[in-house]
């Protein structure tokens, strides 16, 4: 049985190119299960997976849940709202309780960067990071890569533009690191208030002008702009943002005909992306959703034998 070289999937940063390709190839193979009349395989029968979500999430949690069900795992959904934390229970206490139920895998989403790493260090079960603060969202990046491979055949050599609120996006970070590892030319684009000035050291080139990056891009990844950021004076107004960074049909004409448009969701139609682009022929946004399930099945399958593996020493 193939498996990953890690106990946990904490982020793209820790993965080797071999690990990444193993996940993508496995996901490719698992994708056809969705086309069967009986969409279920016994791969994880007898294994227990806990979905531990400290932040509200519909799509990511549903995607994991369906992936787990299609692999025949036993599932426990645990939605720990941040209010239960304010009632006094710490993350470790909550997780320790669940760990004593002997799960094989814990899928965790948390508002704090590094929360899954804390659990990974303390527990024997495999931890899958389903999004930690502004840090990483590795399964999203992997499903993005799977989608690009599906439409472009490869990732190496492609020019990929990630446009929007880079600073607060865990997807942007995981995507950048992943695409860079796989040999793509990554551009991040947005208002300079929303791009950390050291982003180039993650392997991306930086641009403040959407026209510049669109004209050469093979892949355009639009990111959601959060309204609340306006209060922190990152951008003057939603209207100005749309005027300078919104992906409209006119702007998309600057790109090549075979350029694909992606979005990790949820979308703000009319802010970062127009409806006729989101629903247009270049959009592969719904393919991303379908690939999400296959990718998460692959990750769960490849980690399912790894509980109890010694975590690798982190840089000290």
């Amino acid at each position: 049985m193939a498996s990953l070289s890690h106990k946990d999937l904490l982020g793209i940063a820790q993965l080797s190119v071999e690990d990444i390709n193993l996940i993508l190839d496995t996901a490719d193979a698992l994708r056809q299960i969705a086309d069967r009349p009986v969409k279920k395989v016994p791969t994880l029968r007898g294994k227990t997976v806990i979905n531990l979500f400290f932040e509200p999430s519909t799509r990511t949690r549903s995607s994991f849940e369906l992936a787990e069900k299609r692999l025949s795992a036993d599932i426990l959904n645990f939605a720990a709202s941040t209010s239960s934390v304010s009632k006094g229970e710490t993350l470790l206490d909550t997780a320790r309780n669940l760990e004593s139920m002997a799960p094989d895998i814990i899928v965790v989403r948390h508002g704090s960067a590094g929360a899954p790493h804390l659990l990974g260090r303390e527990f024997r079960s495999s931890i899958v990071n389903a999004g930690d603060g502004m840090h990483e969202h590795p399964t999203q990046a992997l499903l993005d890569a799977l989608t690009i491979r599906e439409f472009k055949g490869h990732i190496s050599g492609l020019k990929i533009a990630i446009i929007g609120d880079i600073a607060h996006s865990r997807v942007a970070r995981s995507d950048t690191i992943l695409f860079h590892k796989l040999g793509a030319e990554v551009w991040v684009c947005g208002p300079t208030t929303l791009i950390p000035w050291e982003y180039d050291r993650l392997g991306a080139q930086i641009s403040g002008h959407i026209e510049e990056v669109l004209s050469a891009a093979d892949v355009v990844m639009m990111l959601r702009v959060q309204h609340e950021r306006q209060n922190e004076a990152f951008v003057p107004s939603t209207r100005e943002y749309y005027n300078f960074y919104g992906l409209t049909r006119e702007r998309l004409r600057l790109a090549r005909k075979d350029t694909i448009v992606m979005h990790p969701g949820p979308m703000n139609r009319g802010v970062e992306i127009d409806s006729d682009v989101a629903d247009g022929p270049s959009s592969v946004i719904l393919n991303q959703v379908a690939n999400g399930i296959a990718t998460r099945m692959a990750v769960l399958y490849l980690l399912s034998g790894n509980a109890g593996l010694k975590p690798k020493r982190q840089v000290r």
Partner: protein
Amino acid sequence: MQLIIRQGKIVDPSQKVNKVADLGIDDGHIQEIATHIRKKGRKEIDARGLIVAPGFIDMHVHLREPGREDAETIETGTNAAARGGFTGVACMPNTMPVNDSEAVTSFILERAREVSKIAVYPIGAITKGSQGESLAEIGEMKRAGIVAISDDGRPVQNNQIMRRAMEYSRVFDLPVIDHCDDKELAAGGSMNEGYYSTLLGLRGINPAAEEIQVIRDIILGRQTRARVHIAHLSTLHSLQALVRARHDGISLTCEVTPHHLLLTEAQVTSYDTNMKMNPPLRSQEDVDALVAALASGTIDAIVTDHAPHNANDKMLEFDRAPFGVVGLETAVGLILDRFVRTGVLTIERMVQQLSTNPARILKLDRGTLAKGAWADVTIIDPALQWEIRSREFQSRSRNTPFEGWKLRGGPVITIVRGKTVWSA
């Protein structure tokens, strides 16, 4: 004679002494330094191969009492200090309640008299409740025994208030110690802003948050002629601003911590909350500049910013955990091993930064082995081999970033007013 310390290498920058000799102590005071004292001491210490220095003073610690006795008490904190080679500590006012009144100052000194084997020098708040809005009763606190004022941890943002504080401090001849931190620029940050905060997805604390306040203090210090002291200076540009100010004839003093001299922001990669402090661990460039300034004497004092936290409070998500690390029991060994043994820092300078200068900045009658001075003495073994193990701490808290570090050199005997209060 009460005590004679025989044949140690006496290093006392206050008298420019650096020689092997006997040190005689009687009635809690220094009697003489002589090549050989003929009299017998009631007690004698064989200090061959050891360094004998005026007692070390950590001018920046948090003792947590009153209010957070679960993390540290005056008793455990001062025991930790004694074990770490310190004969005196200046404690910051951010207790609960804040030390912003004569009553709290008196309470701290009263407790210290009861339980502490070393000297405790309270620092009073600048503003009431360290709220940054109106001046605390600085004069009354001075009368009760404070040695400086500071709103450490909740620094004064309002420039007018800071100006008034500096003006007012002159009447009472108190240094104004500022934890330089622009609240808005630092808002929500939990580590240094830069490549690593970008990599780790943690909100950064812009180094400008410190630098802007350092420059403000330089300007206000020039105008008010207050005795401004910059707490735990941590960036290259803060340092450059300070050097320029001194070049322009403005006198101000500053301190650094061992963790800012020995660790960088890269340590945060593991999300270990023992790497979380304020100011945060900075870049290698900053560390290199601080080390050079330590060696040249630009840095006046080495302090620990000893900030004990209960393990439950620290075992949290990185961005939710409190800032701060303990340091009293590790500082001297770390400086000896990493800077003195390696030839970066002379032993004379180290003693200046740990004793002579803190005493001078706080105007304490300490920091010297001159005849007649209080006999506060720190004895160091430069060859001592040891490992930092937090379970052996006297401190009630264990939050050290240096767990497991193997060191050569450390404090072995701490003497306060002629009495041995700790020995290895």
